């Protein structure tokens, strides 16, 4: 019975982590962006994430580092305000925080999986994986693009309305997750300066 709770935690977590896509059609451009992304084997960026929550008077902010190794390893290390490490490998998520370590299998939680998959598949340039879970909208050009992902499944729609990812060629700049209740999180990425 502790698992469902953890799951929900992670769902929240992933809302934060997940990238979002941007607008519409030049699908040849989308293919090109995907191709560029697919070529990157490693990525390491700093992130600043802001959560805009109705319940709070002002946004809460966290920051840290995001690392990616093709094709399916994603690590989110939050440094501030409290240390936390989140590692996704092969569909298994490990959350380490203070002395707690939890391992969970995302297959068990279909409602969570698309969130992880959105950012992982985007980073991997795996268009068909994205399309299994989202309606894709691509706008802009390869030089400056926005990918908007809208969940296909209604279950997922209950916790996430939309994921929007802004990028330049094979770099992700912003990941915004909107929730149906109006709360949202915004992750801004920039090249890592951390050691």
């Amino acid at each position, binding site marked *: *019975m*502790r*698992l*469902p*709770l*953890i*799951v*929900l*935690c*992670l*769902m*929240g*977590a*992933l*809302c*934060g*982590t997940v990238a979002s896509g941007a607008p519409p059609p030049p699908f040849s451009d989308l293919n090109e962006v995907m191709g560029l992304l697919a070529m990157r084997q490693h990525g390491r960026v700093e992130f600043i*994430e802001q*959560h805009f*929550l109705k*319940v*709070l*008077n*002002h946004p*809460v*902010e*966290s920051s840290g580092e995001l690392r990616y190794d093709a094709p399916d390893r994603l690590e989110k290390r*939050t440094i501030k*305000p*409290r240390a*936390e490490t*989140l590692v996704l490998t092969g*569909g*298994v998520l490990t*959350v380490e*925080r203070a002395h*707690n370590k*939890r*391992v*969970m*299998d995302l*297959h*068990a*939680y279909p409602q969570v999986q698309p969130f992880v998959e959105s950012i992982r598949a985007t980073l991997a340039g795996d268009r068909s994986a994205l399309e299994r879970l989202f309606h894709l909208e691509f706008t802009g050009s390869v030089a400056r693009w926005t990918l908007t992902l809208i969940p296909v499944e209604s279950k997922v729609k209950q916790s996430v309305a939309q994921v929007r990812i802004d990028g330049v060629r094979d770099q992700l700049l912003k990941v915004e997750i909107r929730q149906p*209740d109006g*709360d949202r999180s915004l992750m801004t990425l920039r090249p890592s300066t951390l050691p």
Partner: protein
Amino acid sequence: MMVRRARVLILWAGCIAFAAFIVARAHYITDLSAFLPANPTPVQQLLVDQLRDGPATRLILIALEQGDAAARARVSAAMAGQLRKDPRFSSVNNGEAVAGQRDREFLFQHRYLLSEAVTAERFSASGLNAAMKETIDNLSSPAGLLFKTLLPRDPTGELLNIVDQLARAPSPQSRDGVWVSADATRALAVAQTAASGSDSDAQSEAIAAIRTAFATAAGDSRQGPNKGVQLRLSGPAVFAVAARAKIERAAVRLAIASSILVVALLLIVYRSLPALGLGLLPVTTGALVGVASVALGFGAVHGITLGFGITLIGESVDYSIYFFIQSRHVRNAAADRSWQQLWWPTVRLGMLASVCGFASLLPSGFPGLKQLGLYSISGLIAAALVTRFVLPALLPGDFAIRDVTPFGARVAARLQGVRRIGRAAIVLWSVALVMLAIVVLYHDRATLWNRELSALSPVSIEEQNYDAKLRADLGAADVRDLVIVSGPDQESILRSAERAAHALQGLVDDKTIGGFESPANYLPSMATQEIRRSSLPSASELSANLKQALDGLPLRADRLQPFLEDIEATRHAALVTSRDLAGTSLNAGFDALVLHRRDQWSALLPLRSAAAGGPIDMARVVAALKDAKLEDAQVLDLKQESDALYAGYLSEAIRFSLAGFLALTVLLLIALRSPLRVARVLAPLVLAVLAVATGLAIAGVQLTILHLVGMLLIVAVGSNYALFFDRQAHAEDGGSEALTLASLVIANASTVIGFGLLSFSQVPVLVALGTTVAPGAFLALLFAAIGAPAANAHAQHS
């Protein structure tokens, strides 16, 4: 004469009817208790409770193997779904996230009574400020964001605290949504039965339900999407049920097989159906009376006692063999004295000698042995009496069996050949045998006896290893090490459990233990809840504190109105009782850790070792509990305790057996009035026992309590042989040596057949008995025959 005969028969029929009545109404038990102490000490009682009804006994470990991972996951989910609806299981866990809703509601509703963080300081202005700050920090992390919607009601994050409290136990790995083994080749699940582990019928049903659920979920194993997926079950209940079936199967099969062989043997020898029918009367009467005596003496009969009923055949069939064959001599010789006068005293002495042997089982603390002792004693006496009084009364006038004198004569001739080696040589060989036995047994003295209870277990090493592997994968404590606190009611044990948990937490922190469970994790004591409830401030006070606490935080007071309401509601709400747990998955966890027997309540706190499967330094656990002034807490290492218990039985049984042997010696001294004759009677028995023990030791077999029982049987059966040879040599009318030898060889053959078959069974206890008694009985006869004072008998014969 006729009147006397009628009286005997009526008396016998009455006895049979009465015994049958008792046997039919007797209560039969098939649980483990045959192996558990009859009058336990308090620690032993805890052990008994654990072995019988402990949480471990209710767990069935389910593994799905072969097929592909996705198929295993599908089958696991489908099976678990079906079993969760089955009232025979109190919980079924395969790693899937289910049943969460009711749990969440329960935890959330009672969060201020269940959270360990709830103290008066927490609701002061500074405490609230710190708690809310943490909650807000959490919002930027996955764990906290989930609780976002709960924040207005739970700004201090008590639900998260409780979740962390409950999440201290490690979970197994998951793949495709279900638990899997470390190497991911198996899908795993754990089912907890509603019935206690000692209810083997219910356990058997539960196991059948799991198999049915698997069959339904997996579909056709040869084709279809789930092809190839295999089910494998493990756990104490699975072992117990399998063992019971195995023992029953083996007992039935062996009883049938040995009956057929013995009947065939007797038919060949007697060539007479009436003789065969009559010959079986002492055995059947003995068995019936034996079971009835146990039922009367103990109130209930252990299944295992019946299983050993076969042991009785060994000796009681012999009685009728002696009677029929030796009666012939009486008739041949047209003697003026009957078998009763000539031979009965010897049979009676042999029977009494056996009784001495079996009586040594009576004082045992081991109920299984006690019952076996009473069963054998009463059965033997009944069989002997039937042979003495009933058989002669039933013997038809024209009764005749085949003359076995030629056979006996051939045996006697062979024997003469052997005896010709001379007395000195026989003595020399005997001394050599004794020396060999001493050397071998002394050399192996440390490992001669197996002092572990598992030696009696019908569970194979392979199965035990598999079970251990599943447990390691599941991160499930094998509930080997326990802290147990007892008290007169539930509240008192929960309080003690909380104090023990406090002491144990120190050991977790310094890595002496990896962790522990406690029923108080699921349901704190009333006292603790009361302290938490009374630490909640009044609405006005809380409101004031909150206002102060929110200074500098991005939270608005007006959003937290639900928090104020919930606190106020909790202040006036009832405390949580075990009844409130109903319907949550917490209930199974709580139930498993609380035992209630009569006026005695016990809380169990199973310990996990710091390294998986590693040992726990129990001395430090004991010391920590002592420091915490928890003198009434018991620390139990189940394996060590049960082994100690068994080792105790074993030493006791060895001592009593020696006492029994002493009693037998005294009995013979009184009856035979000659130390030399007694020595001659006992020597072949001692040699046979030594030879068998030496043989087993050389073969690398460790002796168990069942081997000891086997040795008693060698002495019991063998004493008859030796006494007949003694009688042959010393009685005025020794009778034909050929007939005596024939009857002994045939009796011996039936014993060796019966016990020899046991050696081929799959059940270790039966194998132990068979491999001891079959060769032992044969050697006892051989040694008795070779060492018999032949000259005397010979003189008489000529």
